[in-house]
């Protein structure tokens, strides 16, 4: 039957002309447009939709909303599979494939249900006591079985093909929840002229009004408000949108689900959108959820909250049973009874209260609804579906059983105080409504509607209107907003003052074992008693010991009942017990949604050199270096890095190569006090550096240890061109700005990053000068005109060029800087000029290896744990001038000769290789502990024909020539080596100065 056996013929907000085919565990079913997965399953008569977490008891839907603890499904397959989707929230779409969870082989027959026979031992604390017990090993063994048996849906390893977005929105008034209170608030604020953002979790606006009969009196009010809101230009409405969390500064994170639109990621359509809203004011109109009652076997499929049954009936045209018992301690459940009465065979109200409002009694009588006052349900018959209940008078007389196929329960209402709690405000107990309400509101926040513990429709509209007026006024909009559209006269159950007599457990001693407080985590009254006996008195401890309130629903239906029962056990007032802390997110969110588009190539910003496109077009294999993409090696030199970098090195040592050094940090330092500024920064002096000269400099941090190094060139009396390491560029720039602006504001100096402005190209090798002579004919680059560390500023073909002679490789070398847009053309010009000399490009691997041969320090040696002396640079410092780090660098322990300091290491064995990070021992040492030092950089030296390394070794070059062992315990390797000078190549610098 396509309509479903429980579908009512008329009414509801479903569209019977638009069927939706879907499947559950392969079973083909049909619902309608407007259904949720839950309503469609209930319409089809599917009662059991899952197995409980621990005992594998059969479970059905309890509620019709975001609070449902039981109806969790895995939707979709492969990378799209979404575990733990709430059937009560999922919009039914054509072709939806749902699978039930935590049951094998099926929810109807589940092997794991054997756990329920062991219920007495599986109670609270069982896992801790049994498996975490005397040895940790026990838990290691049992864990994998337990994790498989107890659990929710499983995460997938497949990549998620869907697209997720993040965005920022701003508004004057953010209204969270579009029930009667939220609609009123949004309307009045919108009329006043404020920018309003109204968000609603549901696909339709109206909140509880959507559960009223669609032809009822409130519908026209709802429709009118929605139409006017849609017509206001500065009111924006986001449906299918949930506030996940509220944060400082009126920042609210929203999650918008677009699953029902079947978005196509290839077209850029997002499945979910996370929005960061910054609002001037926030109106919380989040409403309230109905509490279950706690009595034996209250978890049987067919036991549902009264409001949920009413929602399924009026909104989805589903009668959840034909013979209903409504169990209540307050007036609101009568709404369900009265709406059900004309549509099903029989309705009986079991009210635990002695006195029933005359208006309710009169209407019940007129609808043929039997009402039993001062009576409780103390047991449920049926295992996979309710077949009857045990009714027991409150005064203790004997109970009797009564047949029914649906039990509606109402234990009162719990306002959704989560958002105010996210802001750090503890909920406050309001005794007359037996509910926790927000303990206050942050400045600019207002509460409205059921959230405030006032549950009638009239109060919702009134508090919403008031909140809207105040929020708009807070933003400076005081325009008169007219009258609220008048509401129809309220129904008796709505206006009967919502009297409630809280009862927290029914069924006495029998309640303990199988009266569930938390359905999702299988926590019973007995578990709470055990926690109490074990001395867990704080609600926070109770939660951790029993797992109550954990899981995907975070105890939305269970927390208040549990707290009340715990308070009862301790003999204290509920107000005194307090609540656990509600934390974001309010509903589970996909990690994909939080990541948004920060995936794949958009994961984080990537920096590209001005020469990037050239590299890609000319056989470069690129490598990530911090945020940069740099050429690792070029295919002209070999197909693998191992082959290519050696060939590239050989080219530099024997002829000439060119390399992209645009990634170096470049800082323009200008001003009358630029020289003084640099003198204070660097350990060595820059004030007396002549114009047109470059100097290598080292900076310490203010703790007196290594910060960064680089070459700085004096372009003019008042202008320097600083380069930093690629890795340290951003940090050095911030540090310089910090010093110039806060430490030394009296210095007239400006620092500006020009890293992006200039392309940098290194030309290195014995034929480097010949290349420049060809590339820049007429420019005198002789040793006299441009000696080592000299600089020329020239203009080539109208393009400014900074030509600095300096060397990282140890060869005769130059760095040429041109404005970035000219980088590629100038590189190509150099390359064609250098062709007769055999010039080819070389990549990062060769660059790094060339400098190891020369003993130049770089990334791995520029370690803030090290001192100038450790790196053999102590003589650079000019202690007669003040510089950053000078005083603290003099600390005695930083100057003991036993400190590990820079050495060269050469491999003594022909076969094995040295490895970066290897631990160094003296040949006679026992191989244990941290050794005497470690290898920082290593390479095969084609020049020397062996592995060489730089490293730090206790006592440093005092041990020159000694044999050591380089141990790499991870691979069980030990290699014999010898301490050498870190300068393996051209120690006199003849190549450099050639």
């Amino acid at each position, binding site marked *: 039957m396509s309509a479903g056996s429980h579908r009512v013929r008329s009414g509801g907000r479903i569209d019977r002309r638009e069927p939706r085919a879907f499947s559950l565990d392969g079973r083909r079913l049909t619902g309608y447009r407007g259904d949720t997965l839950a309503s469609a399953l209930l319409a089809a008569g599917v009662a059991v939709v899952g197995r409980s977490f621990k005992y594998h008891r059969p479970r059905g839907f309890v509620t019709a909303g975001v609070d449902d603890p039981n109806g969790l499904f895995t939707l979709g397959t492969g990378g799209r599979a979404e575990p733990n989707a709430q059937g009560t929230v999922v919009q039914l779409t054509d072709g939806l494939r749902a699978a039930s969870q935590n049951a094998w082989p099926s929810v109807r027959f589940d092997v794991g249900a054997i756990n329920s026979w062991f219920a007495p031992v599986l109670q609270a604390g069982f896992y801790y006591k049994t498996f975490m017990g005397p040895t940790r090993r026990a838990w290691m063994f049992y864990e994998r079985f337990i994790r498989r048996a107890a659990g929710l849906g499983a995460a997938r390893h497949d990549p998620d093909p869907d697209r997720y*977005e*993040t*965005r*920022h929105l*701003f508004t004057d008034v953010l209204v969270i929840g579009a029930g009667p209170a939220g609609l009123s608030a949004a309307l009045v604020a919108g009329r006043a002229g404020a920018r309003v953002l109204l968000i609603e979790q549901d696909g339709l606006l109206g909140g509880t009004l959507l559960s009223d009969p669609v032809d009822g009196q409130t519908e026209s009010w709802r429709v009118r408000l929605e139409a006017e809101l849609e017509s206001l230009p500065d009111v924006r409405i986001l449906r299918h949108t949930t506030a996940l969390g509220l944060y400082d500064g009126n920042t609210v994170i929203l999650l918008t689900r677009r699953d029902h639109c079947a978005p196509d990621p290839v*077209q*850029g*359509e*997002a499945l979910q959108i996370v929005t960061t809203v*910054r609002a001037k004011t926030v109106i919380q109109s989040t409403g309230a959820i109905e509490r279950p009652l706690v009595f034996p076997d209250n978890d049987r499929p067919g036991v549902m909250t009264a409001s949920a049954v009413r929602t399924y009936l009026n909104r989805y045209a589903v009668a959840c049973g034909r013979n209903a018992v409504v169990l209540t301690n307050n007036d609101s459940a009568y709404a369900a009874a009265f709406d059900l009465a004309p549509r099903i065979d029989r309705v009986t109200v079991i009210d635990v209260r002695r006195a029933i409002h005359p208006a309710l009694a009169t209407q019940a009588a007129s609808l043929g609804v039997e009402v039993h006052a001062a009576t409780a349900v103390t047991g449920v018959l049926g295992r996979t579906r309710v077949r009857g209940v045990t009714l027991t008078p409150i005064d203790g007389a004997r109970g009797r059983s009564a047949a029914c196929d649906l039990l509606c329960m109402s234990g009162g209402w719990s306002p959704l105080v989560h958002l105010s709690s996210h802001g750090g405000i503890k909920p406050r107990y309001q005794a007359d409504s037996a509910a926790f309400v927000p303990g206050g509101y942050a400045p600019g926040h207002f509460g409205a509607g059921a959230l405030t513990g006032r549950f009638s429709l009239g109060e919702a509209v009134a508090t919403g209107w008031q909140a809207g007026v105040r929020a708009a006024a807070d933003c400076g909009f005081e325009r008169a907003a007219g009258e609220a559209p008048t509401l129809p006269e309220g129904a008796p159950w709505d206006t009967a003052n919502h009297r409630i007599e809280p009862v927290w457990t029914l069924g006495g001693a029998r309640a303990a074992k199988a009266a569930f407080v938390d359905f999702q985590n299988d926590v019973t009254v007995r578990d709470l008693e055990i926690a109490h006996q074990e001395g867990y008195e704080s609600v926070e401890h109770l939660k951790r010991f029993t797992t109550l309130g954990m899981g995907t629903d975070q105890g939305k239906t269970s927390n208040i009942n549990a707290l009340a029962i715990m308070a009862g056990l301790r003999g204290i007032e509920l107000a005194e017990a307090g609540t656990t802390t509600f934390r974001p997110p309010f509903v589970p969110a996909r990690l994909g949604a939080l990541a948004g*588009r*920060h995936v794949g190539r*958009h994961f*984080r*910003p*990537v920096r*590209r*050199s*001005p020469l990037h496109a050239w590299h*890609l077009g000319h056989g470069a294999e690129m490598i990530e270096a911090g945020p*940069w993409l740099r050429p690792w090696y070029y295919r002209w030199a070999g197909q693998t890095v191992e082959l290519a970098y050696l060939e590239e090195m050989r080219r530099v040592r024997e002829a000439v190569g060119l390399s992209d050094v*645009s990634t170096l940090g470049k800082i*323009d330092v*200008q*001003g*009358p006090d630029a020289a003084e500024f640099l003198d204070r920064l660097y350990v060595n002096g820059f004030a007396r550096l002549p114009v047109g000269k470059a100097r290598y400099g080292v900076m310490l941090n203010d703790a007196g240890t290594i910060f960064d190094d680089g070459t700085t060139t004096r*372009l*003019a*009396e008042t*202008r320097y061109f600083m380069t930093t390491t690629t890795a340290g560029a951003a940090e050095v720039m911030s540090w310089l700005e910090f010093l110039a602006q806060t430490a030394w*504001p009296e210095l*007239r100096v*400006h620092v*500006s990053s*020009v*890293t*992006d*402005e*200039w392309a940098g190209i290194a030309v290195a090798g014995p034929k480097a000068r010949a290349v420049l002579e060809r590339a*820049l*004919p*007429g*420019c005198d680059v002789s040793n006299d005109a441009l000696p080592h560390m000299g*600089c*020329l500023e*020239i*203009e*080539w*073909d*109208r393009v*400014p*060029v*900074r030509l600095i002679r300096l060397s990282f490789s140890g060869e005769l070398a130059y760095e040429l800087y041109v*404005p*970035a*847009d000219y*980088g*590629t*053309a*100038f590189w190509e010009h150099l390359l064609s000029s250098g062709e007769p000399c055999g010039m080819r490009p070389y990549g990062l691997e060769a660059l790094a290896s060339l400098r190891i041969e020369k003993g130049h320090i770089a990334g791995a040696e520029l370690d803030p744990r090290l001192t100038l002396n450790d790196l053999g640079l102590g003589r650079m410092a000019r202690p007669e001038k003040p510089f950053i780090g000078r005083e603290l660098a003099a600390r005695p322990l930083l100057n003991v000769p036993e400190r590990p300091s820079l050495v060269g290491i050469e491999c003594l064995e022909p076969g094995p290789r040295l490895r970066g990070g290897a631990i160094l021992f003296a040949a006679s040492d026992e191989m244990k502990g941290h050794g005497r030092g470690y290898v920082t950089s290593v390479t095969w030296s084609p020049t020397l024909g062996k592995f060489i390394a730089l490293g730090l070794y206790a006592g440093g070059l005092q041990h020159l020539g000694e044999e050591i062992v380089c141990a790499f315990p991870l691979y069980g390797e030990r290699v014999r080596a010898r301490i050498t000078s870190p300068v393996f190549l051209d120690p006199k610098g003849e190549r450099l100065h050639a």
Partner: protein
Amino acid sequence: MLERRSALESLAPPTGKGEGRPLVIGEVRGFALLQAAAFVGTVAALERAVRSALGVDLPKRIDAPRRANGICVFKTGPEQFLLVGPQDAQVASTEHAGLESSSHPAPLLAGDARLRRVGPEPVRPAGATEFWADTLREVVPSAMGSLTSLSHGRTRLFLEGAAAREVLSTGIAVDLHPEVFRCDAYALTGLEDTPVLLHRTDSQRYELYVLRTYAGWVWEWLTDAALPFGYEVVKKSHASLIVGPNVRA
């Protein structure tokens, strides 16, 4: 002469004119950018110098730029300003006035006509290829402040069309409501962890000044953000839009 190449050259080939599309994205080329900064106490002097050389005032606040004679000035810090002007052309001149020889006072070096010696002082430092920037250099001594050319260091993108605001809001945490971020407003902000200057140049047109080395990434990010709306890539060869009639002065 050596060819200038955009950071986006290989990424953003123009696909059409973009007329009537919900979104047109592209790069603005042909402008020059100069950072001018004063020291504490020399802002007034710098302002006088800029006014005398270029005829434009410095803005007092970081909200909307000042502009005159083809130069647009953004305030970017307490004593720091960004001047955007035409590239290789005289201020306020609509014609390409053949300034190539006259704007280059540097002496020729012997040997090759293409080679000139420009540094060190007192000859102007390298990096300045714009005449108007040179004009300013002549009146700003180093004690008054500093001038730094950034013409190559920033890539200038634009987004134009009904969807522009929404696309930007996916990455920029600035309130772009038309009554808040009015025409000609600008903000120094971040787009997904990269620093940008965002300038609303018309009711549905925004420009972004992006660090050049991030430009490729930002381009890929923006075009991906624009995917659901559909877009076309258009090339604007000249920066006349700085003073275009669209902008409310």
